[in-house]
């Protein structure tokens, strides 16, 4: 008996070897989303894929589900190569992905219907899945009548009813409020530890570090642009885990440090954050309100200019996907430094936090001119032209030689919003023109 369980525990279910995923960008070459990713998922474990947006973790999940074909490398499920969408793997979505025109029961039955299961058996199996997941009484409700938590329960029941061996979860709790998410996590962990679900292994994508430490036996940390596995951590804390436990906190801290670590020790830290160099750097759209808000928060007590990221994120109620782009933009603008999971304001950052509006704008414009090559480039072109006007299209085209259309658009928009705040140059959406004349 015991032997059987250990045997089951060590069986490799999914194996990912050397998977690359690239997208063709036309003339600009290829955009690498996943770069040589390897992973083994064995039965009896919950594995978390942790990384920021753009790290390709969702892409990897979809490749395992057979929804997309990797450009290179191999994925096997129970020894067989994944070509179509294999039976035995089911998925739970961040957006729940429920069919609004089907009732809870019909939504849960959908996968069985696709397998050609007869209506009577379908109903019986669906009802027991609904029962298991705590949805009794909601069978005839439509998704729009349910709260987010209940909807994700439907998503879970729908995945479980087809008796999968592997359950893939794509940020399953990130669309829920804090309380609901916690309840769902606990319920899922209970079902898992009591062995009441037919699944043998769970692979979940998350960008919530605490969630990963709370639920997973193993965490793979992804870097972004391109997505690579940069670290793998085994988490041996016994379940149920306590967030206040010092060992738990230490793990969270450790992961933060690893995620803010410089990619290569030799490279200049600041410019290495965003992919691309010079004007071709892909910039995130971060509002100047968030930038100044974070600087003020770090400047104020108790941090006084130097903050540890995990408690800062917790007190500001920001997840890493929200916090990191802000912090890294500050780093790009030399308002702050990110070191080993800590953020420290530079002299300019401290000055900014203490200044009034006009001085702030001036300071921001200086940093923009000095450290954001695209902004300086646009300004230079505007200065050179006699009419001080230049079509934004021109710069977008220029960027598209180096990046995809969406990234070019995003980057230009980011620069526009920063330049508008700093009154560095103006932009007119109607005519799509950059100008120097600010409305007086």
């Amino acid at each position, binding site marked *: 008996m015991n032997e059987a369980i250990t045997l089951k525990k060590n069986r490799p279910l999914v194996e990912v070897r050397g998977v690359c995923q690239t997208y063709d960008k036309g003339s600009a070459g290829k955009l690498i989303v996943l770069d040589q990713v390897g992973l083994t998922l064995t039965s009896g474990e919950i594995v978390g894929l942790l990384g920021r947006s753009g790290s390709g973790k969702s892409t990897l999940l979809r490749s395992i*589900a057979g*929804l997309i074909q990797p450009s290179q490398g191999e994925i096997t499920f129970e020894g067989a190569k994944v070509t179509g*969408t294999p039976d035995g793997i089911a998925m739970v979505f961040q957006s729940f*992905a429920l*069919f609004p*025109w089907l009732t809870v029961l019909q939504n849960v039955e*959908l996968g069985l219907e*696709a397998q*050609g299961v007869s209506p009577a058996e379908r109903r019986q199996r669906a009802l027991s899945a609904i029962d298991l997941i705590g949805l009794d009484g909601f069978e005839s409700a439509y998704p729009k009548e349910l709260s987010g938590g209940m*909807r994700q329960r439907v998503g879970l029941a729908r995945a479980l009813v087809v008796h999968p061996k592997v359950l893939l979860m794509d940020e399953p709790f990130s669309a829920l409020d804090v309380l609901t998410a916690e309840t769902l996590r606990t319920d899922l962990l209970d079902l898992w530890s009591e062995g009441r679900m037919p699944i043998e292994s769970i692979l979940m994508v998350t960008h919530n570090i605490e969630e990963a430490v709370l639920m997973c036996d193993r965490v793979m940390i992804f870097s972004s642009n391109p997505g690579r596995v940069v670290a793998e951590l085994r988490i041996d804390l016994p379940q149920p885990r306590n967030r206040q436990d010092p060992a738990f906190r230490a793990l969270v801290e450790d992961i933060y440090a690893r995620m803010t670590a410089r990619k290569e020790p030799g490279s200049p830290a600041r410019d290495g954050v965003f992919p691309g160099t010079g004007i071709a750097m892909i910039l995130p759209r971060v509002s100047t309100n968030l930038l100044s808000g974070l600087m003020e928060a770090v400047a104020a007590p108790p941090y006084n200019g130097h903050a540890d990221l995990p408690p800062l994120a917790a007190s500001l109620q920001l997840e890493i996907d929200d916090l990191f782009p802000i912090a890294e933009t500050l780093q790009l603008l030399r308002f702050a430094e990110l070191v080993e999971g800590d953020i420290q304001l530079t002299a300019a950052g401290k000055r900014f936090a203490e200044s009034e509006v006009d001085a702030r704008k001036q300071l921001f414009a200086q940093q923009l001119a000095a450290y954001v090559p695209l902004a300086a480039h646009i300004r230079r072109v505007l200065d050179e032209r006699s009419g001080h006007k230049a079509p934004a299209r021109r710069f977008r085209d220029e960027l598209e030689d180096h990046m995809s259309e969406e990234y070019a658009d995003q980057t230009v928009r980011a620069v526009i919003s920063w330049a508008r705040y700093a009154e560095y140059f103006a932009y007119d959406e109607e005519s799509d023109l950059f100008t120097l004349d600010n409305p007086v």
Partner: protein
Amino acid sequence: MIFQPHNRSSQSDAAALARGRIAPNIYDLIAFAMLAALVMLLARGAADMRAPADLLSTSPVTLDIGNLPEYALRTTLRMFAAIIVSLIFTFVVATLAAKSRRAEMVIIPALDILQSVPVLGFLTFTVTFFLGLFPGSQLGAECAAIFAIFTAQAWNMAFSFYQSLRTVPADLDEVSRGFGLSAWQRFWRLEAPFAAPGLIWNTMMSMSGGWFFVVASEAITVGNTTVQLPGIGSWLALAIDKQDFKAVAWAVATMAVLILLYDQLLFRPVVAWADKFRFEQTAGQEKPRSWLYDVLRHTRLIKIAGLPFSWVWQRAMLLRLGRRRIVEPTPSPLWLAKALDYLWLAVIIGVALWGIVAAINYISQTLGWHDVFEAFSGGLVTLLRVILLIALASLIWVPIGVWIGLRPAIAERVQPLAQFLAAFPANVLFPFAVVAIVATGVNPNVWLSPLMVLGTQWYILFNVIAGASAFPSDLKEAAAVFRIRSWSWWKNVILPGIFPYYVTGALTASGGSWNASIVAEVVSWGNTRLEAFGLGSYIAKATEAGDFPRVILGIAVMSLFVTLFNRILWRPLYVFAERRMRLN
């Protein structure tokens, strides 16, 4: 143009699709040429089929009140036959366009042009063609009438369905693929339900428009062939011929009853039912209601009667028709795909060129440059009429619509009335206008014009009402708090707020007016005949004379005008409205 069920998200999808189709491109030209060739072929074929003129004289239409219910029924049946054909067309053609890139290259521009082709212009060939197809039976004439209604409704339905298929939510697509739904299951579980609200709304709007064409197409004269199908349209034509005022009044009343029944027994229940397919995860918003739907839902007998159907349906869902989709098809080498693309493009350009040459040849056999000039100047006059009348109707109905829309209690009662009026075939009312013009002796060139917007102005009204009703109350309150009044209120608050709705309404009204010009620029009452100079009367006269080359020329010119008018004015406005004046 696609009608939107006042659902903002799908409207923005439509705008996104429309944005790509503003500047006329090579595909528009190709589509245009191909259609011209097709029409020309049809005309030639039709000319060869000499249909017997006395075909339908065996059971002539009479002005006997006792016959009116039967006529009404037959008119309605024609409508339903057309709607079924349109649905089949939609499912086949739109699905093809959504699934095959090469088919899409031809189908979408073709649909776009077809939307601008005057429906009644077609009648000339189709009547002759179908009469020749079924010699000696009424079936040919029936087919021609049904085809006329079909051409009035199929295009926008197909567009709506295509647009939905192209915008199926990515996560639901992934679920369907993850579970390995077959193509058949995927269609019925994902694609058809997702497309349902838009398609149903478009079907209903098309049907409203269809009444106009069924009336116009039942009694028609092409050259020496006169067709009178038993129906309200023929009744009306006869009444006009005999100058029987009472019979015209009866036709109006019957039409009103028919549309009322259609609204209550079909339109509303179906819209109420389709509400569950709306792709919004949130509850709230006002639900469309229908007493009949409520009754049906609560009737046990209906449920029991429906059981066998639901059993069959459930079994049908288990069918595994269609290959299970395996990831993405392995792409063929890039050069091969490119080469095939060019080959395909060469083929369609070749066909189009041939079409242009053949059509020009055909027309130039009998017509010269002065005819082209005549058609174009007629087109300009009709264009002027459309612009002036839409502007006039907007001036009248926008303020009224805003006033009504901001008062929910009134809007609730007026809105169905406006929709009813939009569905009412205005051509039934034409005789009254003729009598009035003759009696007062005013210039028909001016006074026939209002007939063109008689039926279509209501689209402006009910869209504006919908827009004003949906205007957010916080903005209303903000305007009140800051005392924004009079012109400033109109300019800065309400006009931008209703603009997207107004554009939809005006666009529909303008399209309808072009179509209506064919019956509105030439009207008669007994032997009295009034005529206004314009492209509509040009086509109408050519039809009557059975002069096919002139009809083709007229249709081509009108399609050109409508297409350019849409591209230059309406579509940019539509895109602008979506980009700048969205309220959410």
